[in-house]
């Protein structure tokens, strides 16, 4: 089975969306963009209560993926 996925194209599409979103946030009143953002973030927050990993499993995944940064 072949997976046809252009990683670079996907990255560029995501960056284009981020730029468009930033321009929209600049243009609309704070009440508008923040209401939309709150709907998204509050849904994540609510759903996080069903997080499947235990404390120790979660901390293991954090150690695996976290690079040691200059500022961090």
């Amino acid at each position: 089975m072949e997976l046809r996925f252009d990683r670079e194209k996907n990255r560029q599409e995501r960056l284009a969306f981020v730029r468009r979103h930033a321009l929209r946030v600049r243009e609309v009143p704070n009440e508008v963009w923040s209401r939309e953002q709150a709907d998204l973030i509050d849904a994540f927050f609510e759903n996080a209560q069903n997080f499947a990993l235990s404390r120790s499993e979660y901390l293991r995944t954090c150690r695996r993926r976290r690079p040691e940064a200059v500022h961090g």
Partner: protein
Amino acid sequence: MRIASAPDGIIHIDGKVVTALDRFVASVTEIIERYTRYVIVSGYVAILFGRARGTEDIDLYIDYMDRDTFMSFSEDLLEQGFYFLNSDDIGEIYSMLCDRLAVRIAGAGRIIPNIEMKFKKDDFDRYAMSRAKRIQFDDIRFFVSPIELQIPYKLYLGSDKDIEDAVYLWMLFRETLDGDLLRMFMERLQVRGEPYGIEV
């Protein structure tokens, strides 16, 4: 986005809807502030300014606390319904911080979101804290790292998500940033913004 800088340097985001994540972060930073200074860095800075994404952790640095102060802080934190994910032994948590490791704070019964907290340790952390911007909206007040440091830092981290955060902050603030400062941090962190349209 309407952002107003008051004469006292506070940045007001009037009308911003407070999210459950904002409330969680504020409830922890309010306790931290009773004991020491802090500064929020990384992804949550972009989220505060409208980036449309969730996050599982919020990164922040605190000033050094001696052991007794940290014990009082931890007691306060636990009384308010939070806990350290890393260990139930507060002495161990303090040792981790002194070893320059991050510790994670979450609400009771939760794993995410959590606050990833470290003692500040290098010139970048010291700069972020000494020049922290005070952000205010509704009844919430946060201290966040200057954007001129956050953009190069995000490029330095380099994941797709980090680069998107850097591009977002650049698109939002490009006319108001201190170009010399931004260039200086980009040089020190040896990152380039041009491939992503961040041209200073």
